[in-house]
Protein backbone atom coordinates (compact mmCIF):
# COMPACT_ATOMS: atom_id res chain seq x y z
CA UNK A 1 0.00 0.00 0.00
CA UNK A 2 1.40 3.34 -1.02
CA UNK A 3 1.87 5.86 1.75
CA UNK A 4 1.27 9.57 1.28
CA UNK A 5 4.00 11.50 3.07
CA UNK A 6 5.45 14.97 3.19
CA UNK A 7 9.08 15.33 2.09
CA UNK A 8 10.41 15.32 5.66
CA UNK A 9 8.57 12.11 6.57
CA UNK A 10 9.59 10.39 3.34
CA UNK A 11 13.26 11.20 3.92
CA UNK A 12 13.17 10.19 7.59
CA UNK A 13 11.21 6.97 7.15
CA UNK A 14 12.25 5.64 3.75
CA UNK A 15 15.90 6.63 3.36
CA UNK A 16 17.94 4.80 6.01
CA UNK A 17 21.32 6.30 6.84
CA UNK A 18 24.14 4.66 4.94
CA UNK A 19 21.94 3.09 2.29
CA UNK A 20 22.26 3.06 -1.48
CA UNK A 21 20.11 5.89 -2.83
CA UNK A 22 19.23 6.50 -6.48
CA UNK A 23 18.20 9.99 -7.51
CA UNK A 24 16.48 10.54 -10.86
CA UNK A 25 16.09 13.41 -13.26
CA UNK A 26 18.34 14.15 -16.22
CA UNK A 27 20.67 17.16 -16.38
CA UNK A 28 18.66 20.11 -14.98
CA UNK A 29 15.26 18.49 -15.59
CA UNK A 30 12.88 16.47 -13.38
CA UNK A 31 15.10 16.21 -10.31
CA UNK A 32 13.23 15.32 -7.08
CA UNK A 33 14.61 18.39 -5.30
CA UNK A 34 11.98 18.55 -2.54
CA UNK A 35 13.23 15.12 -1.39
CA UNK A 36 16.90 15.93 -1.97
CA UNK A 37 16.62 19.09 0.14
CA UNK A 38 15.14 17.03 2.98
CA UNK A 39 18.08 14.61 2.87
CA UNK A 40 20.34 17.63 3.25
CA UNK A 41 18.24 19.20 6.00
CA UNK A 42 18.13 15.95 7.97
CA UNK A 43 21.79 15.22 7.18
CA UNK A 44 21.04 11.65 6.09
CA UNK A 45 24.29 9.92 5.15
CA UNK A 46 24.24 8.14 1.81
CA UNK A 47 26.38 5.02 1.54
CA UNK A 48 26.21 5.07 -2.23
CA UNK A 49 24.55 7.63 -4.45
CA UNK A 50 23.47 6.42 -7.91
CA UNK A 51 22.31 9.00 -10.44
CA UNK A 52 20.91 9.20 -13.96
CA UNK A 53 23.47 9.11 -16.79
CA UNK A 54 23.69 12.91 -16.45
CA UNK A 55 22.96 14.64 -13.19
CA UNK A 56 23.38 18.15 -11.80
CA UNK A 57 22.24 19.89 -8.63
CA UNK A 58 20.42 16.78 -7.30
CA UNK A 59 23.84 15.18 -6.80
CA UNK A 60 26.01 18.27 -6.33
CA UNK A 61 23.95 19.50 -3.37
CA UNK A 62 24.23 16.14 -1.54
CA UNK A 63 27.96 15.96 -2.25
CA UNK A 64 28.44 19.55 -1.13
CA UNK A 65 26.67 18.74 2.14
CA UNK A 66 29.27 16.04 2.74
CA UNK A 67 26.64 13.32 2.83
CA UNK A 68 27.85 11.06 0.03
CA UNK A 69 30.38 8.32 0.75
CA UNK A 70 30.41 6.66 -2.64
CA UNK A 71 29.16 7.95 -5.99
CA UNK A 72 28.10 6.25 -9.24
CA UNK A 73 27.44 9.05 -11.74
CA UNK A 74 28.62 9.04 -15.37
CA UNK A 75 28.25 12.84 -15.65
CA UNK A 76 27.83 15.51 -13.00
CA UNK A 77 27.63 19.02 -14.39
CA UNK A 78 25.38 21.92 -15.21
CA UNK A 79 25.70 21.62 -18.98
CA UNK A 80 25.62 25.16 -20.47
CA UNK A 81 25.85 26.71 -17.00
CA UNK A 82 29.19 25.17 -16.03
CA UNK A 83 30.91 22.42 -14.07
CA UNK A 84 29.48 21.02 -10.83
CA UNK A 85 31.40 22.86 -8.12
CA UNK A 86 30.93 20.53 -5.14
CA UNK A 87 31.40 17.37 -7.19
CA UNK A 88 34.57 18.76 -8.74
CA UNK A 89 36.03 19.82 -5.40
CA UNK A 90 35.10 16.57 -3.65
CA UNK A 91 36.70 14.40 -6.34
CA UNK A 92 39.80 16.60 -6.60
CA UNK A 93 40.24 16.56 -2.82
CA UNK A 94 39.31 12.90 -2.47
CA UNK A 95 36.42 13.47 -0.07
CA UNK A 96 33.99 11.34 -2.13
CA UNK A 97 34.73 7.89 -3.45
CA UNK A 98 33.80 8.08 -7.12
CA UNK A 99 33.20 4.83 -9.01
CA UNK A 100 34.03 5.71 -12.60
CA UNK A 101 31.16 4.67 -14.89
CA UNK A 102 29.58 5.31 -18.26
CA UNK A 103 26.04 5.83 -19.50
CA UNK A 104 25.72 2.37 -21.02
CA UNK A 105 27.20 0.58 -18.03
CA UNK A 106 24.99 2.42 -15.55
CA UNK A 107 21.82 1.88 -17.56
CA UNK A 108 22.44 -1.81 -18.12
CA UNK A 109 23.42 -2.23 -14.46
CA UNK A 110 20.04 -0.82 -13.42
CA UNK A 111 18.31 -3.04 -15.99
CA UNK A 112 20.06 -6.01 -14.43
CA UNK A 113 19.06 -4.87 -10.95
CA UNK A 114 15.44 -4.53 -11.98
CA UNK A 115 15.38 -8.07 -13.40
CA UNK A 116 17.33 -10.15 -10.90
CA UNK A 117 20.16 -10.44 -13.43
CA UNK A 118 23.57 -10.53 -11.70
CA UNK A 119 25.64 -8.74 -14.37
CA UNK A 120 25.43 -7.70 -18.02
CA UNK A 121 28.14 -7.88 -20.68
CA UNK A 122 28.61 -4.57 -22.47
CA UNK A 123 28.55 -3.84 -26.18
CA UNK A 124 31.90 -3.67 -27.96
CA UNK A 125 33.67 -0.31 -27.74
CA UNK A 126 33.94 0.01 -23.98
CA UNK A 127 37.30 -1.79 -24.11
CA UNK A 128 38.80 1.22 -25.94
CA UNK A 129 37.93 3.45 -22.98
CA UNK A 130 39.81 3.69 -19.69
CA UNK A 131 36.59 3.41 -17.71
CA UNK A 132 36.17 -0.32 -17.03
CA UNK A 133 39.77 -0.94 -16.02
CA UNK A 134 39.59 1.99 -13.60
CA UNK A 135 36.60 0.57 -11.69
CA UNK A 136 36.86 -3.17 -10.96
CA UNK A 137 34.04 -2.88 -8.47
CA UNK A 138 31.56 -2.22 -11.30
CA UNK A 139 33.36 -3.67 -14.31
CA UNK A 140 34.92 -7.10 -14.78
CA UNK A 141 35.79 -9.21 -17.77
CA UNK A 142 33.85 -12.34 -18.64
CA UNK A 143 34.15 -15.04 -21.28
CA UNK A 144 31.22 -15.21 -23.66
CA UNK A 145 30.13 -18.86 -23.41
CA UNK A 146 28.79 -18.77 -26.97
CA UNK A 147 31.68 -17.13 -28.85
CA UNK A 148 34.47 -17.59 -26.26
CA UNK A 149 35.34 -13.90 -26.71
CA UNK A 150 36.40 -11.94 -23.65
CA UNK A 151 34.04 -9.04 -22.87
CA UNK A 152 33.66 -6.34 -20.28
CA UNK A 153 30.61 -6.73 -18.06
CA UNK A 154 28.93 -4.46 -15.54
CA UNK A 155 27.62 -5.57 -12.18
CA UNK A 156 23.92 -5.16 -11.34
CA UNK A 157 22.92 -2.13 -9.28
CA UNK A 158 20.03 -2.46 -6.82
CA UNK A 159 19.52 0.80 -4.94
CA UNK A 160 17.85 0.47 -1.55
CA UNK A 161 15.62 3.36 -2.47
CA UNK A 162 15.00 5.45 -5.58
CA UNK A 163 13.75 9.02 -5.52
CA UNK A 164 12.14 10.23 -8.74
CA UNK A 165 9.90 13.12 -9.76
CA UNK A 166 6.81 12.59 -11.90
CA UNK A 167 3.82 14.66 -12.91
CA UNK A 168 0.88 13.08 -11.15
CA UNK A 169 -0.38 10.40 -8.78
CA UNK A 170 -3.85 9.23 -7.88
CA UNK A 171 -5.16 8.54 -4.40
CA UNK A 172 -4.14 4.88 -4.64
CA UNK A 173 -0.51 5.64 -5.46
CA UNK A 174 -0.58 4.98 -9.19
CA UNK A 175 1.78 7.41 -10.90
CA UNK A 176 1.90 9.09 -14.31
CA UNK A 177 5.31 10.20 -15.57
CA UNK A 178 3.89 12.95 -17.80
CA UNK A 179 7.38 13.67 -19.15
CA UNK A 180 10.25 12.01 -21.02
CA UNK A 181 11.20 9.02 -18.89
CA UNK A 182 14.97 9.26 -19.48
CA UNK A 183 16.28 6.28 -17.48
CA UNK A 184 13.99 6.89 -14.51
CA UNK A 185 11.70 3.93 -15.24
CA UNK A 186 14.48 1.37 -14.98
CA UNK A 187 15.88 3.18 -11.95
CA UNK A 188 12.44 2.94 -10.32
CA UNK A 189 12.15 -0.76 -11.14
CA UNK A 190 15.66 -1.56 -9.90
CA UNK A 191 15.17 -0.06 -6.43
CA UNK A 192 13.94 -2.00 -3.41
CA UNK A 193 11.76 0.95 -2.46
CA UNK A 194 10.47 3.81 -4.56
CA UNK A 195 9.52 7.31 -3.47
CA UNK A 196 7.82 9.41 -6.13
CA UNK A 197 7.53 13.16 -5.82
CA UNK A 198 4.64 14.55 -7.89
CA UNK A 199 3.35 17.96 -8.88
CA UNK A 200 -0.26 17.14 -8.13
CA UNK A 201 -2.88 14.54 -7.25
CA UNK A 202 -5.37 13.54 -9.91
CA UNK A 203 -8.23 11.06 -10.24
CA UNK A 204 -7.62 7.39 -10.96
CA UNK A 205 -9.48 7.92 -14.21
CA UNK A 206 -6.88 10.51 -15.25
CA UNK A 207 -4.08 8.00 -14.63
CA UNK A 208 -6.00 5.26 -16.47
CA UNK A 209 -6.33 7.50 -19.53
CA UNK A 210 -2.56 7.80 -19.86
CA UNK A 211 -0.94 5.64 -22.49
CA UNK A 212 0.27 2.17 -21.48
CA UNK A 213 3.90 2.25 -20.40
CA UNK A 214 3.81 5.84 -19.13
CA UNK A 215 2.53 5.04 -15.64
CA UNK A 216 3.65 3.00 -12.63
CA UNK A 217 1.31 0.89 -10.50
CA UNK A 218 0.82 1.66 -6.83
CA UNK A 219 2.29 -1.67 -5.72
CA UNK A 220 5.71 -0.46 -6.87
CA UNK A 221 5.39 2.91 -5.13
CA UNK A 222 6.34 2.92 -1.44
CA UNK A 223 5.38 6.55 -0.99
CA UNK A 224 4.00 9.47 -2.92
CA UNK A 225 5.11 12.96 -1.92
CA UNK A 226 2.97 15.75 -3.32
CA UNK A 227 5.31 18.69 -3.80
CA UNK A 228 4.16 21.30 -6.32
CA UNK A 229 7.20 23.12 -7.63
CA UNK A 230 9.32 20.44 -6.00
CA UNK A 231 11.68 20.02 -8.95
CA UNK A 232 12.84 23.64 -8.82
CA UNK A 233 15.35 24.94 -9.61
CA UNK A 234 15.29 22.14 -12.20
CA UNK A 235 12.48 21.94 -14.74
CA UNK A 236 9.30 19.88 -14.62
CA UNK A 237 8.14 19.31 -18.19
CA UNK A 238 4.62 20.60 -18.64
CA UNK A 239 4.74 22.57 -15.40
CA UNK A 240 7.68 24.98 -15.34
CA UNK A 241 11.10 25.52 -16.91
CA UNK A 242 14.29 25.40 -14.90
CA UNK A 243 15.05 28.51 -12.84
CA UNK A 244 18.28 29.63 -14.45
CA UNK A 245 18.82 32.51 -12.05
CA UNK A 246 18.52 30.18 -9.06
CA UNK A 247 20.87 27.67 -10.67
CA UNK A 248 23.43 30.41 -11.34
CA UNK A 249 23.06 31.60 -7.76
CA UNK A 250 23.70 28.05 -6.58
CA UNK A 251 26.80 27.74 -8.74
CA UNK A 252 28.11 31.05 -7.43
CA UNK A 253 27.41 30.14 -3.80
CA UNK A 254 28.82 26.62 -4.13
CA UNK A 255 32.05 27.79 -5.68
CA UNK A 256 33.76 27.90 -2.29
Amino acid at each position, binding site marked *: MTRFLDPAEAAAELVPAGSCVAVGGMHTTSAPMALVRELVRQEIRIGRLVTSP*STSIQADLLIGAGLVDELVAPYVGF*EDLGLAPCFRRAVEQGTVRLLESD*EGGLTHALYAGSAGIPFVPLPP*GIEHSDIPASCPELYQQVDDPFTKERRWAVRALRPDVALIACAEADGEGNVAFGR*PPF*TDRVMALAARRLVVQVERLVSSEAIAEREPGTTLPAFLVSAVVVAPGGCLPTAAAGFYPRDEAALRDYLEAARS
Partner: protein
Amino acid sequence: MSAWSRTELMAVVMARAFRDREVVVMGAVPALPLAACRLAKALHAPGLSYLVGGSGTVDPKPAALPSQSCDPELTGGPCTLPLHEVVLLEGRGDALDVFCAGGLQIDANGNCNLVCVGDHARPKLRGPGSVGLPFLSAVKRVVIYTMAHNPRTFVERVDFVSGAGDRAELVVTPLATMDFDGSHRMRLASVHPGVTAQEVVEATGFELAMPPSVPETPEPSREELETLRALDPEGLLRR
Protein backbone atom coordinates in the same frame (compact mmCIF):
# COMPACT_ATOMS: atom_id res chain seq x y z
CA MET B 1 23.32 40.41 -43.48
CA SER B 2 26.15 40.88 -41.05
CA ALA B 3 29.39 38.91 -41.25
CA TRP B 4 29.22 35.40 -39.91
CA SER B 5 30.61 34.48 -36.51
CA ARG B 6 33.21 31.77 -35.98
CA THR B 7 30.56 29.63 -34.30
CA GLU B 8 28.25 30.04 -37.27
CA LEU B 9 31.09 28.93 -39.53
CA MET B 10 31.57 25.86 -37.32
CA ALA B 11 27.88 25.00 -37.69
CA VAL B 12 28.15 25.35 -41.46
CA VAL B 13 31.28 23.17 -41.61
CA MET B 14 29.62 20.46 -39.52
CA ALA B 15 26.46 20.63 -41.61
CA ARG B 16 28.45 20.10 -44.79
CA ALA B 17 29.94 16.96 -43.25
CA PHE B 18 26.58 15.30 -42.62
CA ARG B 19 25.23 13.11 -45.40
CA ASP B 20 21.71 12.43 -46.47
CA ARG B 21 19.96 9.66 -44.48
CA GLU B 22 22.56 9.62 -41.73
CA VAL B 23 21.42 9.50 -38.12
CA VAL B 24 23.38 11.94 -35.97
CA VAL B 25 23.50 11.78 -32.20
CA MET B 26 24.61 14.61 -29.90
CA GLY B 27 24.93 15.03 -26.15
CA ALA B 28 25.03 17.89 -23.66
CA VAL B 29 24.88 21.54 -24.82
CA PRO B 30 23.47 20.58 -28.22
CA ALA B 31 22.98 24.03 -29.82
CA LEU B 32 25.86 23.81 -32.30
CA PRO B 33 25.38 20.23 -33.58
CA LEU B 34 21.61 20.73 -33.56
CA ALA B 35 21.97 23.83 -35.72
CA ALA B 36 24.31 21.92 -38.03
CA CYS B 37 21.86 19.02 -38.37
CA ARG B 38 18.92 21.26 -39.11
CA LEU B 39 21.00 23.21 -41.65
CA ALA B 40 22.11 20.02 -43.40
CA LYS B 41 18.56 18.71 -43.44
CA ALA B 42 17.29 21.97 -44.91
CA LEU B 43 19.93 22.16 -47.61
CA HIS B 44 21.43 18.89 -48.84
CA ALA B 45 20.38 16.07 -46.51
CA PRO B 46 16.58 15.97 -46.32
CA GLY B 47 16.63 12.41 -44.99
CA LEU B 48 18.97 13.20 -42.09
CA SER B 49 17.77 12.37 -38.59
CA TYR B 50 19.23 13.75 -35.39
CA LEU B 51 18.88 12.57 -31.85
CA VAL B 52 19.44 14.75 -28.81
CA GLY B 53 20.94 12.21 -26.43
CA GLY B 54 20.04 13.64 -23.05
CA SER B 55 16.34 14.01 -23.71
CA GLY B 56 15.98 11.28 -26.33
CA THR B 57 14.20 13.62 -28.72
CA VAL B 58 14.40 12.89 -32.44
CA ASP B 59 14.35 15.61 -35.08
CA PRO B 60 13.16 18.43 -32.80
CA LYS B 61 12.44 21.75 -34.50
CA PRO B 62 12.54 24.26 -31.65
CA ALA B 63 11.73 27.89 -32.45
CA ALA B 64 15.18 28.89 -31.17
CA LEU B 65 18.37 26.95 -30.50
CA PRO B 66 18.29 25.37 -27.03
CA SER B 67 20.99 26.02 -24.47
CA GLN B 68 20.51 22.58 -22.87
CA SER B 69 19.75 19.05 -24.00
CA CYS B 70 16.60 18.49 -21.93
CA ASP B 71 14.99 21.82 -22.77
CA PRO B 72 11.19 21.38 -22.68
CA GLU B 73 11.13 23.06 -26.09
CA LEU B 74 12.98 20.04 -27.45
CA THR B 75 10.82 17.31 -26.03
CA GLY B 76 7.85 18.57 -28.02
CA GLY B 77 9.59 17.07 -31.08
CA PRO B 78 7.83 14.58 -33.34
CA CYS B 79 9.11 11.67 -31.25
CA THR B 80 10.91 11.35 -27.93
CA LEU B 81 12.63 8.04 -27.19
CA PRO B 82 13.26 7.04 -23.60
CA LEU B 83 16.96 7.68 -22.96
CA HIS B 84 17.15 4.01 -22.03
CA GLU B 85 16.34 3.12 -25.64
CA VAL B 86 18.88 5.64 -26.93
CA VAL B 87 21.46 3.73 -24.90
CA LEU B 88 20.33 0.49 -26.55
CA LEU B 89 20.67 1.99 -30.02
CA GLU B 90 24.07 3.49 -29.22
CA GLY B 91 25.33 0.01 -28.40
CA ARG B 92 23.62 -1.72 -31.30
CA GLY B 93 26.22 -0.36 -33.68
CA ASP B 94 24.18 -0.11 -36.88
CA ALA B 95 21.45 2.29 -35.77
CA LEU B 96 23.39 5.53 -35.42
CA ASP B 97 25.86 6.88 -37.96
CA VAL B 98 27.51 9.99 -36.56
CA PHE B 99 28.36 10.93 -32.98
CA CYS B 100 29.12 14.59 -32.26
CA ALA B 101 31.51 14.73 -29.32
CA GLY B 102 34.02 16.89 -27.50
CA GLY B 103 36.22 16.82 -24.45
CA LEU B 104 38.25 18.60 -21.81
CA GLN B 105 41.13 17.08 -23.70
CA ILE B 106 41.27 15.84 -27.28
CA ASP B 107 44.38 14.08 -28.44
CA ALA B 108 46.37 13.54 -31.60
CA ASN B 109 44.45 10.33 -32.33
CA GLY B 110 41.03 11.80 -31.65
CA ASN B 111 40.57 10.28 -28.21
CA CYS B 112 38.29 12.40 -26.02
CA ASN B 113 38.54 12.91 -22.26
CA LEU B 114 35.75 14.29 -20.10
CA VAL B 115 37.08 12.82 -16.86
CA CYS B 116 40.19 14.55 -15.58
CA VAL B 117 43.31 16.55 -16.20
CA GLY B 118 46.28 15.01 -14.42
CA ASP B 119 46.40 11.74 -12.55
CA HIS B 120 43.05 9.98 -12.37
CA ALA B 121 43.46 9.11 -8.70
CA ARG B 122 44.21 12.74 -7.73
CA PRO B 123 43.21 14.98 -10.62
CA LYS B 124 44.25 18.59 -11.08
CA LEU B 125 40.90 19.17 -12.70
CA ARG B 126 37.92 16.85 -12.47
CA GLY B 127 35.58 17.04 -15.46
CA PRO B 128 31.93 16.02 -15.47
CA GLY B 129 32.53 12.41 -16.57
CA SER B 130 32.39 10.22 -19.64
CA VAL B 131 28.61 9.80 -20.10
CA GLY B 132 28.12 8.14 -23.49
CA LEU B 133 31.60 8.66 -24.94
CA PRO B 134 32.52 4.94 -24.91
CA PHE B 135 29.89 4.63 -27.64
CA LEU B 136 32.17 6.64 -29.96
CA SER B 137 33.59 3.27 -31.01
CA ALA B 138 30.13 1.93 -31.86
CA VAL B 139 29.03 4.48 -34.50
CA LYS B 140 30.26 4.74 -38.08
CA ARG B 141 31.99 8.09 -37.70
CA VAL B 142 32.69 10.75 -35.12
CA VAL B 143 32.72 14.51 -35.53
CA ILE B 144 34.64 16.26 -32.76
CA TYR B 145 33.93 19.89 -32.01
CA THR B 146 35.16 22.27 -29.35
CA MET B 147 35.16 26.01 -28.75
CA ALA B 148 38.56 25.70 -27.05
CA HIS B 149 41.34 25.39 -29.57
CA ASN B 150 44.33 25.71 -27.28
CA PRO B 151 47.28 23.59 -26.14
CA ARG B 152 45.53 22.54 -22.91
CA THR B 153 42.65 21.00 -24.86
CA PHE B 154 44.60 19.60 -27.81
CA VAL B 155 47.19 17.31 -26.23
CA GLU B 156 49.41 14.55 -27.57
CA ARG B 157 47.73 11.96 -25.37
CA VAL B 158 44.65 12.40 -23.17
CA ASP B 159 45.09 11.78 -19.45
CA PHE B 160 42.03 9.50 -19.53
CA VAL B 161 40.26 7.94 -22.51
CA SER B 162 36.53 8.55 -22.08
CA GLY B 163 35.81 7.68 -25.70
CA ALA B 164 38.28 6.42 -28.25
CA GLY B 165 39.23 8.27 -31.41
CA ASP B 166 39.25 5.30 -33.75
CA ARG B 167 36.14 6.45 -35.63
CA ALA B 168 36.97 10.20 -35.55
CA GLU B 169 36.85 11.72 -39.03
CA LEU B 170 36.54 15.46 -38.56
CA VAL B 171 37.48 18.01 -35.91
CA VAL B 172 35.92 21.47 -36.00
CA THR B 173 37.14 24.39 -33.90
CA PRO B 174 36.87 28.20 -34.09
CA LEU B 175 40.24 28.23 -35.89
CA ALA B 176 40.28 25.32 -38.29
CA THR B 177 39.02 21.98 -39.45
CA MET B 178 41.12 18.85 -39.06
CA ASP B 179 40.93 15.33 -40.36
CA PHE B 180 43.15 12.28 -39.82
CA ASP B 181 46.03 10.94 -41.88
CA GLY B 182 46.76 7.33 -42.83
CA SER B 183 48.14 6.56 -39.39
CA HIS B 184 45.06 8.19 -37.85
CA ARG B 185 46.97 11.19 -36.60
CA MET B 186 45.12 14.50 -36.58
CA ARG B 187 45.94 16.61 -39.64
CA LEU B 188 45.14 20.20 -40.47
CA ALA B 189 42.50 20.17 -43.21
CA SER B 190 41.60 23.84 -43.61
CA VAL B 191 42.06 27.11 -41.79
CA HIS B 192 39.13 29.42 -41.29
CA PRO B 193 39.22 32.78 -43.12
CA GLY B 194 41.48 35.17 -41.24
CA VAL B 195 43.40 32.40 -39.45
CA THR B 196 46.90 31.28 -40.46
CA ALA B 197 48.19 27.72 -40.36
CA GLN B 198 50.87 28.94 -37.96
CA GLU B 199 48.24 30.18 -35.52
CA VAL B 200 46.56 26.76 -35.59
CA VAL B 201 49.86 24.98 -35.04
CA GLU B 202 50.61 27.20 -32.05
CA ALA B 203 47.15 26.64 -30.58
CA THR B 204 47.60 22.88 -30.77
CA GLY B 205 49.50 21.08 -28.03
CA PHE B 206 50.86 18.37 -30.28
CA GLU B 207 52.44 18.23 -33.70
CA LEU B 208 49.62 18.36 -36.23
CA ALA B 209 50.09 16.38 -39.41
CA MET B 210 50.26 18.87 -42.27
CA PRO B 211 49.01 18.45 -45.82
CA PRO B 212 51.15 19.72 -48.73
CA SER B 213 49.06 22.88 -48.81
CA VAL B 214 46.40 24.13 -46.42
CA PRO B 215 43.21 25.42 -48.03
CA GLU B 216 40.94 28.00 -46.50
CA THR B 217 37.61 26.79 -45.13
CA PRO B 218 34.97 27.96 -47.60
CA GLU B 219 32.92 30.76 -46.09
CA PRO B 220 29.22 30.19 -45.43
CA SER B 221 27.25 30.79 -48.59
CA ARG B 222 24.46 33.31 -48.49
CA GLU B 223 21.97 30.42 -48.51
CA GLU B 224 23.73 28.62 -45.66
CA LEU B 225 23.86 31.74 -43.54
CA GLU B 226 20.26 32.76 -44.18
CA THR B 227 19.01 29.28 -43.40
CA LEU B 228 21.14 29.04 -40.28
CA ARG B 229 19.98 32.38 -38.94
CA ALA B 230 16.35 31.45 -39.42
CA LEU B 231 17.06 28.52 -37.09
CA ASP B 232 18.78 30.79 -34.59
CA PRO B 233 16.58 33.86 -34.22
CA GLU B 234 18.09 34.63 -30.82
CA GLY B 235 21.61 34.63 -32.25
CA LEU B 236 22.99 32.04 -29.85
CA LEU B 237 25.72 31.23 -32.35
CA ARG B 238 26.71 34.89 -32.66
CA ARG B 239 27.43 35.45 -28.98
